[in-house]
């Protein structure tokens, strides 16, 4: 297991190098001049030229690339073109908020999805099963934006129980609606996957054996079936969590949540290269780590994978 983890961590270096190069080249190719974005409406060529020099944009591409790699090696992500603040500082401020949102959304999605999927697989109440599956279909089809506005309308404007938007200094009340909105699509998918996982498992021999042994239904579902159904759930949760961490721009925009996603999109629109490059690299690291965690957790849940030589 340990060698497995170490090997994957070492792979980070070539992955990051590849991501950095691709982002760098993309920024160069994409139309739109960062200097024009900063200069506003009225500008003369001379001011633009001076800004380019100040930001180092007039140097040859290769020089800029080497300089960029050099700074990366020192963990220096540079300064934003627009605000002149260190990129690392901006990411440090915003990422925790995206993290809280992602963790909450993931928590709701997994708990809710597994509960809904399990309940609907139970088979005692077919009507409940159908209702839950319809709910999950709606959840998957509903655009995040629309869902967010709907929830704001319902809980903030009509019922007055939650604030419509904002970070609120970290208050839980402000977290609920954005986390719920973000979690819906995942929750729906997890519910469906859990349901089929349960249905499959319930037909297996070991369940019949457990029933024959006289184990209660709850014990069967909770202890035996659940673990087997969890593998696909973890795969989905891991993939979705990775994308949540990149910042869920739509949710953050609708709820005015000051996270990383919106920040990156604004940087892209302003061609703020250092921020874009720094943020993309950061997200790449996160993605690799999350995938690693998912793979390791397979081993924790399914002994078959563990015994097959650490994966």
């Amino acid at each position, binding site marked *: 297991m340990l060698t497995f983890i170490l090997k994957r961590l070492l792979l980070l270096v070539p992955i990051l190098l590849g991501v950095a190069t691709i982002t760098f080249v993309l920024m160069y190719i994409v*139309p*739109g*001049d*960062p200097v*024009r*974005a*900063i*200069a*506003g*409406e*009225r*500008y*003369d*060529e001379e*001011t*633009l030229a001076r*800004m380019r020099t*100040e930001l180092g944009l007039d140097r040859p591409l290769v020089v800029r690339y080497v300089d960029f790699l050099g700074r990366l090696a020192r963990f220096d992500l540079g*300064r934003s073109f*627009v605000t*002149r*603040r260190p990129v690392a500082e*901006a990411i440090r401020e*915003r990422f925790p*908020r995206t993290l809280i949102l992602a963790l909450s959304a993931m928590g709701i999605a997994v*708990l809710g999805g*597994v*509960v809904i999927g*399990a309940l609907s697989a139970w088979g005692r109440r077919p009507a409940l099963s159908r209702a839950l599956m319809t709910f999950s279909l709606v959840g998957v089809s509903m655009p995040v934006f629309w869902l967010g*506005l709907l929830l*704001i*309308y319902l809980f*903030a*404007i009509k019922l*007055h*129980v*939650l604030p*419509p*938007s*904002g*970070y609120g*200094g970290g208050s839980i*009340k402000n977290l*609920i609606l954005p986390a719920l909105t973000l979690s819906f699509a995942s929750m729906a998918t997890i519910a469906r996957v859990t349901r089929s996982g349960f249905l499959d498992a319930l037909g297996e021999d070991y369940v019949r054996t457990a029933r024959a042994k006289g184990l209660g239904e*709850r014990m069967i*579902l*909770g*202890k035996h079936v659940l673990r087997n159904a969890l593998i696909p759930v973890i795969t989905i949760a891991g993939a979705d969590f990775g994308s949540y961490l990149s910042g869920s721009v739509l949710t953050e*925009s*609708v*709820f*005015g949540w*000051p*996270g990383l996603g*919106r*920040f990156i999109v*604004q940087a892209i*629109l*302003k*061609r703020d290269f250092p921020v874009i490059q720094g943020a993309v690299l950061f997200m790449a690291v996160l993605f690799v780590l999350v995938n690693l965690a998912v793979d390791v957790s397979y081993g924790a849940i399914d002994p078959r994978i563990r015994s097959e030589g650490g994966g």
Partner: protein
Amino acid sequence: MIRAAIITLCISFAFAVPGCARHGDDRVLRLALQTEPTTLDPALSVDFSSGEIASLIHSNLVSFDPDARIVPDLARSWEILDGGRQYVFHLGPARFSNGRRVTAADVVYSMRRLLDPRAVSPRWWLLASLAGASAYHEGGSWNPAAASAANDSTVVVRLSRPVPHFLGLLAMPAAGIVCREEVERLGARYARSPCGSGPWKLSAWNEGDEILLAPNPGWAGRRTGLAGLSFRIIPEEMTQIAEFEVGNLDVLEVPRSELEHWRAAGTPLLWKEELRVVYIGFNTTKPPFNDPRVRQALNMAVDVDKIIAQVLFGAAKRSRGVVPPGLRQSPEPAERYRYDPDRSRALLAEAGYASGFSMEIWQRENPEALRVLESVQGYLADVGVKAKLVTREWGAFKEAIDRGTPDAFFIDWLADYPDPENFLMPLFHSSNVGGGGNRTRYRNARVDSLLDAAAACMDTARRWELYRSAEEIVYEDAPWLFLWFPQKYEVLSPRITGYRIPLIFNGQRFLDVGV
């Protein structure tokens, strides 16, 4: 297991205690911004959010009131001498938010800083008319006569040529007076921790979430009745409306698509004509748009009044000319482009395009713009012109226009200072082709000479005559498909008094607003 999960969910939801309105000091005025400021350093503030907040924190020599009139700010009084080439400003008492008295030396420092090539300010052109400013900006030495402190409370400014709208330039956010030792101490971090002598000071900046301002004890002007200002950053219009409806915002800008709803509800709406003009510009160097007859024909092909009524819900005034009604001191040019598709076709035929032609109209991403342009597209099709709509995001859009790529583009122009010069000169003088504002690449020697003469003329009546003549020529030449001057609508929460929509964006300092 399942039961435990359900119980956990219920407990977590129990945290949603009712009563969601943000409570805090009730005398804080709560406003919203769509985008976060990028900097609070006046010399670097280019976008509206930055400029608006920087103007609240820093004072200028003179500033705008909500009606865009020049009023004393740091300078209590001033004299204009030598035919407009010399200004003498007498400063009143004021302190920076760090407690130090503002002196004439601070004003000189701030002006010099704006022009300093090392500051790389995109707004250095505000003070380009100062004696020796261009040379200094190129890297030469500072001409001490440009701006000097005669004593602690007197600033003498010398211009290389008379500039009739100079006071308007001084009222712009970029000309804000900064605290020298703070700038030198903080360097680039001044953008986050500004120190000004304006009515407000920065009390907290919660990244991406909220900016809080508190009254500046050093402010020498009228005391405000408010305990502070809160600017929440809410990018989505619908979310802003939601916040207003639950009572978390005091002022809401009503999107045009929502106007009907608010009008029907009978809520009192404030409105103001913006100092902004919306138009479709033609690339006057690209055939067939180099022929004025084609441009005039296209103007007559579109029923602009109908578009305003249906797509904009009446929230605009059709433009005949370039200068918005709020600034005019003379009547608009006489109507030339009444909706007349037959005349349009005839004129196109005369120009050699009886069978029409194809063109592209470029726009930035904007749903309202799309609706407008689809209507325009329909009207143009009626006269045989096939218009293809091209959407680009803002950065690529601007760059394409600078390069002269699009045939036509849908864009607007917003005033920096309330003077017709701010419209006619950048938009139509040949020296401003490209990034300077003349996106249509329009060149007309007669217009150039009229604008040049007006730029040097200190007599207001004569200036207006010159601008009126220039505007007539431009209107006839039609480098634009003239559209409209938009109106801004706002609703207020019943708890505030004394608020007015400012004519220019940094003209409202909230000193008269009460809760």
